[in-house]
């Protein structure tokens, strides 16, 4: 007979596994179905392994300036590419083991295999093959009152660039291959594209990033795009914007990439192409049509508590659409399951989801960009503080970038903050929490930021917005 749970979650990414833990804590008998590896994209082929790669790149980059710190380097520092990859895989597998432990600790049943909704609270599971080529799971059926779909997303493929993980790699190929291309063309200048651009450049690869929009990291504030472009140019990373890849040809062991620009058609020689043009939700073949679960393209449609139009079926994380971020997935899952358990929960404010990019300089932002704030009809005041004026940045030898912060003139509401620079991804948490607490600029100025820190720059930018700048 099929085991019956209070809650079954399909997919064990940061959305799925954290939700499972919270569900179990709330007293729900919980199981998770996973066709591949615990931890999903994020832990196995996303956030964690890429950040490990980027750390190696950072150390490489810093080693080139080692004499700036008063240190002598006799000889040379060079990347051992397969070892860099190996280290990253190690970080991924460590985190994967961590999730295995968490499932045991929290009494969550893990059913490996491919899960499919079969109606009436039933999930059918069939064996599947994981990323290591191992067959996992067995055929079975489980039941649950509440089924949460957390199947995530996969790299988007575009017609001119079919992904074969050889000539054209996805992020997965780019982070697991042990041979480094000498020349890499990256298509797409979102977070993933620029992170790999930075990484491969510092591993010794000649990198060209091609973006169809008129600026890189186009989701960020325009000033941030400008600053990153300047920095990438200095680092020797080629950037082409307003350019569309038409396809490629293989000839003489090299790839000729056809790119359409304002000036006509250009050809770029490369050894590999990384397609980094976004992701699409995994909505296919999981029983959605059969049950009549509403979708919008590749996103499952949900309400503010992640309920689909079908009773007892919920969806969270990447499969519900943008922004495709791990922390969005886990927070959605926790809200979803707390609501199921009858807790007093508040819906998420989507404007409070920060976005981070981990190349150097790092980028982090939350809330409105200047353009968005104006479009939304706010009368705004904007403050900017360059890290060039920060004592900590001078001490660290990392003085690129700035904090830009946007306030509403009427109430002083903190509308948005955009940071580019060293450690930006850690600095943004203060702003996220402050927005969650409905701060105005005054509290940010009043908060006694320790000296010397980069975080002071958030206070200094706020003072600038209020017309009371101190250190600029």
């Amino acid at each position, binding site marked *: 007979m099929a085991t019956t749970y209070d809650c079954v979650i399909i997919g064990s990414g940061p959305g799925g596994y954290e939700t499972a833990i919270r569900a179990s804590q709330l007293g729900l008998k919980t199981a998770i179905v996973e066709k591949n590896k615990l931890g999903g994209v994020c832990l196995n082929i996303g956030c964690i392994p890429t950040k490990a790669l980027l750390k190696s790149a950072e150390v490489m980059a810093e080693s080139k300036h080692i004499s700036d710190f008063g240190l002598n380097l006799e000889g040379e520092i060079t990347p051992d590419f397969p070892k860099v990859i190996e280290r990253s895989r190690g970080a991924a597998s460590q985190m994967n083991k961590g999730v295995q432990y968490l499932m045991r600790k929290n009494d969550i049943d893990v059913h490996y295999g491919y899960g499919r909704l079969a109606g009436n609270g039933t999930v059918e599971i069939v064996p599947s093959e994981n990323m290591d080529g191992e067959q996992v799971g067995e055929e079975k059926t489980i039941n649950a009152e509440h089924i949460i779909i957390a199947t995530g997303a996969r790299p988007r493929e575009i017609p001119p660039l079919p992904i074969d993980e050889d000539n054209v790699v996805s992020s997965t190929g780019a982070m697991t291959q042990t041979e480094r291309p000498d020349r890499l063309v990256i298509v797409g200048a979102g977070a993933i594209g620029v992170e790999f651009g930075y990484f491969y450049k510092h591993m010794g690869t000649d990198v060209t990033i091609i973006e169809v929009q008129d600026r890189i990291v186009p989701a960020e504030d325009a000033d941030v795009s400008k600053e990153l472009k300047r920095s990438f140019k200095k680092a020797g990373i080629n950037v082409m914007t307003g350019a569309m890849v038409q396809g490629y040809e293989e000839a003489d062991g090299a790839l000729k990439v056809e790119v359409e620009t304002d000036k006509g058609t250009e050809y770029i020689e490369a050894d590999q192409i990384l397609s980094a043009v976004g992701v699409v939700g995994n909505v296919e073949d999981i029983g959605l049509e059969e049950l009549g679960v509403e979708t919008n393209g590749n996103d499952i449609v949900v309400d503010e508590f992640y309920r689909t139009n079908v009773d007892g079926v919920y969806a969270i994380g990447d499969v519900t659409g943008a922004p495709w971020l791990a922390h969005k997935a886990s927070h959605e899952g926790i809200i979803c399951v707390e609501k199921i358990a009858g807790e007093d929960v*508040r819906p998420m404010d989507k404007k409070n989801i920060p976005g981070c990019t981990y190349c150097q300089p790092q980028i982090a932002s939350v809330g409105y960009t200047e353009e968005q704030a104006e479009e939304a009809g706010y009368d705004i*005041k904007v403050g900017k503080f360059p890290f060039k004026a920060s004592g900590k940045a001078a001490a660290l030898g990392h003085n690129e970038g700035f904090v830009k912060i946007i306030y509403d*003139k*009427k*109430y*002083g*509401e903190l509308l948005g903050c955009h940071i580019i620079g060293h450690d930006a991804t850690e600095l943004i948490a203060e702003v996220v929490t402050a927005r969650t*607490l*409905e*701060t*105005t600029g*005054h*509290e940010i100025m009043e908060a006694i930021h320790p000296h010397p820190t980069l975080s002071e720059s958030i206070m200094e930018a706020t003072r600038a917005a*209020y*017309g*009371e700048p101190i250190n600029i």
Partner: protein
Amino acid sequence: VRDREPEPVPAGTDSEGRRIKASPLARRMAQDHGVDLASMDGSGPEGRIVRRDVEARIEEGEAAPAETK
């Protein structure tokens, strides 16, 4: 050139002298719209009054014409 506006709104007290817990933004909006924080419950953690509470009150106020109050 000074642009101190909007001034911060200090936390008020209720009729029994207890401090009213409200977010800075909620205090500011309440002052602007003449909403009395002492007379309302907060929906935030530990009963904190937050923006949505004040917004709801403002909407109510607009829905109900002043003379019927």
